[in-house]
Structure formats: structure tokens, C-alpha cells
């Protein structure tokens, strides 16, 4: 089972073994605009993805 990134209602399947940073970039998301969380806890984007990991991305940019 590969790993998964979730941003709002979008899901991205990514390969385990790469860093969260790399996976975020591969999905075309700007790392500056999100934070990675696993089970509700903040995780550094330098961590490597494990098999079956579900990483929820929290959007951080607000406007207006």
C-alpha cells in the first residue's frame, strides 16, 4: 500500500520511501502553503514516508 497525501478534498497517492517534502513537490503543491500532519500531530516535511502513511496537509495561507 503506497502512502497518501490529503489536502482539503483532494487525495494524492505517493510512493513510500521519499520525504514528505519531495512528495508534496511531486503533487505540485507549494510547501510554503501547507503543513504536514499525521494522526493530528505536526510532522516535519523532512521525514520519510512509510508504507500506508496518511499525511493530512493543513493549508496555512489566508487572505482578504
Amino acid at each position, binding site marked *: 500500500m503506497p502512502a497518501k497525501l490529503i489536502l482539503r478534498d483532494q487525495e494524492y497517492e505517493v510512493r513510500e520511501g521519499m520525504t514528505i517534502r519531495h512528495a508534496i513537490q511531486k503533487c505540485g503543491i507549494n510547501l*510554503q502553503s501547507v503543513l504536514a500532519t499525521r494522526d493530528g500531530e505536526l510532522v516535519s516535511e*523532512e521525514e520519510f514516508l512509510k508504507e500506508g502513511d496518511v499525511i493530512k496537509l493543513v493549508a496555512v495561507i*489566508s487572505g482578504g
Partner: protein
Amino acid sequence: MRCRKCDHKAVINMRQHKLALCKEHFPQWVMEQTERFIRKYRMFERHERLLVAVSGGKDSLSLWDILWRLGYQADGVYIGLGIDGGISYSDTSQRLTEQFAAQRGLQLHVVDIQEEYGSTIPQIANLTYRGQGKPCSVCGLTKRHVMNRVAHQGAYDVLVTGHNLDDEAAMLLGNTLTWNAGYLLRQAPVLPALQGMARKAKPLCRFYEREMAAYALVSGIEYIYDECPHAAGTKSIYYKGLLNQLEEERPGAKLSFYLSFLQAKENGLFNEVFSTGGEADDLTGAGGVAMHPCPTCGQPTTTPAECAFCRMMAKVTR
């Protein structure tokens, strides 16, 4: 990746500072840095009374939390805009703000725009020329006016807002693209008080938006995650996106854009410029702009008669 301070697992890596920290040391670092910026820019002292403008979002609630933990006397003001957008935006943000204040025993002033002026922000926008489909201009003008009023009436020394570095850098980019000298002159971490208007300070102006969201997450602060339904497509979001593209390629680019601006200003770059017009309501009187009190509300303005807020409200039939 390990925490620089204790060797536990890092939860955030800030490439612009070459600094990775764990979930204990990161919030501690944010508090220390905030204290450092408050002193560096001489924003306020512990004996002064602060009014924090809170929206229920991550920045303003985190700011209030930090100031409270640092031992500052900080009350809050929440402005009910009456924005629903199918997600009960205003109701939810008010509930979260009230919950935050109650949990910490903090004093919160709530001003409901509809109760006070007879119409919600979207309604005022529809009733005035400022509307043009988007309520942001009406909203900004109203928020500034009400915050200044509450700060003045409550005799607060300082009005404190949660603007982060991304907000400031986006504003700076916008003002630079048009070389709006008046706005550039007034963009600063702290603005002195004027007759009828409290001092203004932005203690988070050097933190990335990402860092503030991380602070809220790590500290367990419940904030409104949904955006205001009118935020999509605003210029500030667009500029933030551009700056973040730059930041990805060159870590620290956003911060250096802002800090070198502050440095240039300190070196006198904008000393001789005068306001170039535009919205004249948030002026500090710097740069030789003549200010006088609005005959209706008493807040300082550069326009010869009533201020922009009072002129707008005169158009809104109750």
C-alpha cells in the same frame, strides 16, 4: 531530523533560519522571538494595556495566546461581520474566539456590525459604491474604524494585530508594484499614536504564515480553518502565492524582502515622499500629511471633511 535544542524529533524545519525544532521547543522559540521583536521595534511595555484584534483565525488567536503567556495585559476585540457564505463563517469564528477567551479568562469586546449599524458587511457593500461584487474594501474600512474606536474608547495604549510576514510581504509587493509611496511610508511594525487613535503594533510581522499555523497546531488552539468565502481571488492571496514560489527556490527570500525594506526605510529611503492619495484613513501623519479629526466620528483623517468610513455609512440607509 532532530531538534536543534534537545535532539528529540523535530516537528518543523525552518529553512529560512536553518532551524529545526521539536514540539516543545518550537512554541518556546516563537514566544522568545515575539518578545524580541516587541522590544526591538519598541512596540509596547508590560505596564501598558493592549487591545488585540481577533478574528478567530490562527494568527490573531495565536498572537493573543502568546501575549497572554508572556504576561502582557491584553484584551481582545472581535468584530461580527455578518458573513455566512454557506459555512456560517462569522458565527463559527465568533464562537471559537469566545471559547478561546473563556478558556483563558481573557476579556473580549464583541462588536456586531449589523446590531450597531443596521446592516451586515455584505449588505453595506451592496448598498454602496464600494461594493462592486466584493465586500473586502467595505470590510477593511469598517474593521479599521471599529478597532480604532474600541481602542480609543477603552483608553488602550496599543491596538495589536496578527499580521504575519506573509501578510506584510504581500502588502509590500502590492505597494511596490504601484510604488505607492504613501502606503510604503506607513507600512511598519509599529505606528505611533495620533490624536484620537491608539498606537498600532504587529508583533508577528517577522513570522512566516506557516510558522503561525504550526504554533496554533502545536499549542492546540482551535481556530477557524475555513477561509472567509470572499477571500478567494483577492490580490493578497495572489501575491502570497508569487512570493511562496520565490521562497521555494530561495529559502529566506520573503523575509529578506521585508527586512531589507525596513532597513531601507530606516536609512531614509522614503523620508521625503508624501502621500500619493488613495485611501486616506489609516494615515499616521508621517511624511508631512496633514491630519485632522473627522467632524462626525473624531478619528483622524486626511480628507478635508468626513472620513471615508463616515461618508460610506451616510450612504447606508438604516
